[in-house]
């Protein structure tokens, strides 16, 4: 994971002034090796600003640890013993809804299966990144989620485009079930591997606007016509 060739020019959230930013994180993953790896990569608090306050290996543990430590961000594996990431999200729903100190989830998975990914997103996760992500990008994503922003990997963007493209049937809620032209464009650029900054430059909009588009897509994904999406996911599995 610790590659010498860091992926790109992506924002170094650490810089020298990392101390100002601080985020408390819980790691949920059933592979201890992986937890150790992530811990080693992002857990150097004084450099990255990330403090790992708890770890859990299954659903029950996760719920206990999250309730006890009340982190700002949970890095959540999709495949977990005891019901998977979706179950953790379901049982932590009250914590997510808490207006005062809301816990936010970032799905972290090796899975390529669309229904796994869409499943956790619909369950309330604020984003999805693959485990091949570099440490710097992961730290960046964690901070973005802490800010309440959505984090889409290119692959997730692809899944979402696919999901919304194939819902041909008239949506129940017109406003909700349809992506605007702009949102589609933003998603496409994410899928093509552009960073937010680059998307902003490309579309002549501000990074803030890009963020709000992405958040809107996430909201639509979480709230839109459940049946259509489920059907899509099921059909995809069979294809």
């Amino acid at each position, binding site marked *: 994971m610790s590659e010498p060739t860091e992926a790109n020019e992506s924002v170094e959230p650490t810089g020298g002034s990392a101390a100002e930013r601080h985020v408390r994180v819980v790691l949920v993953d059933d592979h201890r090796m992986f937890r150790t790896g992530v811990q080693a990569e992002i857990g150097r608090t004084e450099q990255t600003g990330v403090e790992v306050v708890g770890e859990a290996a299954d659903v029950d543990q996760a719920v206990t640890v999250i309730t006890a430590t009340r982190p700002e961000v949970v890095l959540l594996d999709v495949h977990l013993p005891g019901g998977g990431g979706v179950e953790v999200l379901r049982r932590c729903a009250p914590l997510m809804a808490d207006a005062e100190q809301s816990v936010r989830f970032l799905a972290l998975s090796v899975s390529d299966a669309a229904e796994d990914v869409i499943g956790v997103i619909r369950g309330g996760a604020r984003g999805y990144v693959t485990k091949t992500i570099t440490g710097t990008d992961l730290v960046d994503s964690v901070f973005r989620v802490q800010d309440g922003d959505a984090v889409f990997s*290119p692959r997730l963007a692809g899944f979402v485009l*696919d999901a919304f493209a194939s819902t041909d049937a008239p949506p129940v809620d017109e406003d909700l079930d349809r992506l605007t032209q702009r949102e589609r464009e933003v998603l496409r650029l994410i899928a093509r591997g552009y960073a937010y900054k680059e998307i902003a430059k490309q579309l002549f909009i501000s990074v803030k606007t890009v963020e709000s588009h992405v958040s809107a897509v996430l909201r639509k994904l979480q709230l839109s016509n459940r049946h259509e999406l489920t059907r899509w996911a099921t059909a995809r599995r*069979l294809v």
Partner: protein
Amino acid sequence: MPRWAGRVNIDGMPEAAAAPLAEPRPPRKLYRSSDGRWLGGVARGLAGHLGLPVIWVRLVFVGLFMADGLGALLYAAFWFFVPLGLGGVDAQRPPPFTTETASDGRRRLVARKPDKGQIVALLLMVVVAMVFVGSVDLGNGAKAYLLPAVLVGAGVALVWRQADNARRARWMEAGRRRRTLSLLRAAGGVVLVTAGVSGIFVLQGSAAHLGSVLQAALAVLVGITLLAGPYLVRMTQDLSEERLMRIRAQERAEVAAHVHDSVLHTLTLIQRNAENAGEVRRLARAQERDLRTWLYKPEGTGKDEADEPANLADAVRRNAAEVEDKHGVPIEVVVVGDCPLDERIAAQMQAAREAMVNAAKYGGEGGAVQVYAEVEGKTVFVSVRDRGPGFDLDSIPADRMGVRESIIGRMERNGGTARLRAVPDGGTEVELEMERAEKTS
């Protein structure tokens, strides 16, 4: 096919024990032959299993039949207990079912050769039965029961053949016979049995009691069905459940085999090449990709992928995988939508591959190459993006044909467009756009 493994094991038979064990193939099992059979396929099946000419086995059966009908009993026992299968087929004989599938009603008389065999067998049986009846010296009363008994036997045989046909139709597409025919056959069997049974009863009483006897027979039948029904149902359920478990176990074994074969080997290779970071990364990527296709693509198990891809998504992934392996640069692929390949899209795929090669060669230092393909209506869009030092088409000498010919030229010749542009923060992006050919819509 799991059903072969789950068959009643009859390998304990002496014939099976005598079978040659020189080759390490699975132990041969005794099946009744479904091809070219005269009656139940027992003789053929046995002949195939023992490696003897069919006619010998048949003669032995006929000979045994003379000995107080022992042959018939034996034959019936085999018919009952041995499952119908493909075993015991003589290689030199052309499979008769080919003629059967070609039948369209009119040609059936010509095509149905096995039926001729059946007629011969039937005649033979009648003759043998005559001899048998003539030779057996029974009491006067007992002899009267012979005809009903033969009727019952014939009816049972008919119904069992019917069951065989149903079973055969399940694993062979040859079961195209008319439904009415099979229904008629089953009905004929039932009528024969009923006639025989009631004949026995009628012989005991007088013809006047026929009605009540039939009623009694019916009542007994219904009673038996009611008694045995639940057990039968439960047995079938148990059987199907067991089969399901077996299928699962088989799947698990397959996963284990795959993991063992490819993953462990790759891990070994990685340990051997631990100092060579590039090689390790290449091996790991290739293995990851392989495992992913294997896990998340239920139908394409990744084993038989030698044939050409038929649709866009497969083609893009295949190209990316090949370039990745060759140049050791990770390529991330995102595909939205899918469509079948036509000539234009195939040309676009070649251009995209060229772009991937360029990106991997010249822009691979900056990190993973990103490939995005999308089908929207009739338009297919592919973008290949690297994070390398960038690239200026105008600065390339005019005699260097790489990009101009194999990407831009190729796209334009096929009616598409190609755009190369520098990404604001470094790197190059190639955008390829192509309309799908008309006929595919």
